[in-house]
């Protein structure tokens, strides 16, 4: 299971990196004569449209391969943004305590108290959809879990005698964080990041499906499902091909996260 999940993700990353080489066609080249062509293995020039073409005659497989770039780029970048923000705030809350702690944790509770997608829609509607906006918005939607884990780890260690000893010997807070806190929470962070990756990829696809994510003609899975919606009756492959890949990615990545959690950190189970 885990091996399968790992292989799937590596394959996806390789596909995304090598997209221009692997893709059989130019993902944005239109060909009005080849519009809405059904999936086929035969072709005059040896370059078949294995998954058919869309309403503008673009090759669905090539667009799907290039779409993996968007999903992974936004997904990984959002996880990094959320991780950095969450870790920083979690450490701050844990070390400073008092008011800082109360404020940060109330903010976290408050953010969980309403559906973030609504806020994301509001923000993107006004700022306009772009890669940076998308990454920041999706990233910020997921900082809370990181913050909670780091904060509780700090609280556990802060009162321990060896930490007092480090301080007494002139060791810095940075040293405590780097040598004692991070190694303790590393496995938890890996698990959270994996589960967050699945969530970020689905959120990006959802926003792109709503027209608020990556803008055409750049191919993205969610955007492709949206474009194919009008043609579901006559050309079902335009929507279903990227949709199935998206669904598979989401299931495989989140199952890998579940598996990692059971393996590395059973205490996270309740979350």
């Amino acid at each position, binding site marked *: 299971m885990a091996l399968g999940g790992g292989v799937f993700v590596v394959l996806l990353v390789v596909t995304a990196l090598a997209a221009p080489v692997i893709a059989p066609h130019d993902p944005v080249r239109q060909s009005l004569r080849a519009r809405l062509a059904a999936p086929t293995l035969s072709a005059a020039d040896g370059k078949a449209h294995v998954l058919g073409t869309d309403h503008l005659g673009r090759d669905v497989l090539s667009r799907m391969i290039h779409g993996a770039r968007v999903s992974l780029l936004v997904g990984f970048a959002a996880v990094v943004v959320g991780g950095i923000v969450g870790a920083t705030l979690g450490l701050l809350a844990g070390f400073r305590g008092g008011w800082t702690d109360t404020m940060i944790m109330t903010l976290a509770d408050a953010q969980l108290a309403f*559906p973030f997608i609504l806020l994301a829609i509001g923000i993107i*509607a006004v700022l306009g959809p772009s890669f940076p906006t998308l990454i920041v918005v999706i990233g910020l939607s997921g900082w809370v879990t990181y913050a909670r884990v780091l904060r509780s780890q700090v609280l556990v260690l802060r009162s321990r005698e060896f930490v007092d000893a480090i301080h007494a010997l002139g060791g810095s807070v940075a040293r405590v964080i780097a040598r004692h806190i991070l190694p303790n929470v590393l496995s938890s962070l890996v698990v959270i990041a994996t589960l967050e990756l699945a969530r970020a990829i689905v959120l990006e696809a959802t926003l792109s*499906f*709503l027209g608020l994510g990556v803008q055409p003609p750049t191919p993205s899975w969610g955007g492709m499902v949206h474009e194919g919606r009008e043609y579901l009756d006559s050309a079902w492959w335009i929507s*279903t091909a990227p*949709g199935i890949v998206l669904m598979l990615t989401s299931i495989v990545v989140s199952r890998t996260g579940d598996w990692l959690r059971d393996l590395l950190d059973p205490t996270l189970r309740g979350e």
Partner: protein
Amino acid sequence: MHGLLPFLGSRLLRAAVALWLVSTVVFVVMRLSGDPVPLLLPPDAPRSEIFRVRAELGLDRPLPVQYVVFLGNALRGDFGRSIHFRQPAFRVVLGYLPATFELGLTAFVLAALVALPIGVVSAVRRNSPVDQVTMGLALVGQSAPTFFIGILLILVVSLKLGLLPTSGREDWRNLVLPALTLGAFAMASIARLTRSAVLEVLRADYIRTARAKGLSEALVVAKHTLKNAAVPIVTITGLQFGTLLGGAVVTETVFAWPGIGRLAIQSIYNRDYPVVQCTVFLSAVLFIVINFCIDLVYGLLDPRVRSS
């Protein structure tokens, strides 16, 4: 009733902070977007007209003053006039609210009716084929993107089998697919958590006692297990209701269901910002109020929650 007041207080504080956070973000984002006045007026409007509208909207005042005025207006439901509908944004959004409630409630009831029996059966018949198939489906349902579930249902049920309409809101047949799509995630979550809650109880000592007394398995499950598993199941089921609101944006767009989710997306395309702000704010308020009520009921039912 020990501890009920502090519990109530902390939940109330959380709800208030969440509300304040939403309104602040809405305000900040609105200001980041720049001057809304050119959007409200025809492109060839004279400068005097621009200044007049700017003063009318209070945009010539200092930012902190604008912020306080905005908060006051938001609390009274005043988000300005819709550019597209030419009437107060709040009234527009209220008009679309019943459709969203209808869809959300149906999805919720459907999810609970399907998921609860499945969860119980899966737990009682643990590791049976029924358990494995339904829990496998539940895993898929939890991680599949809502919009793609909708597209697949339209493709298979409406277009290939011709059983149900693809979109619109006329009679109950229009409601089935959107409710299934919106409820899929909740259904999967409720089924999985019901299963683990029932399994937990089945391991308890008093269940062994009940079996030792010679009670039939059906009686053990019906009388002793379900009653004790009910508290966590009710909470989880209740919490799912709140998350349905977020999913409504996607589901309503896929099925052209005339609720506030679709209204929000269309208003973005129309650049009708007053309506977008009002929808975001009102949905957040609804979500917060619903969650607050669920918390409250749960706190009343189970004193253990209050201390956590």
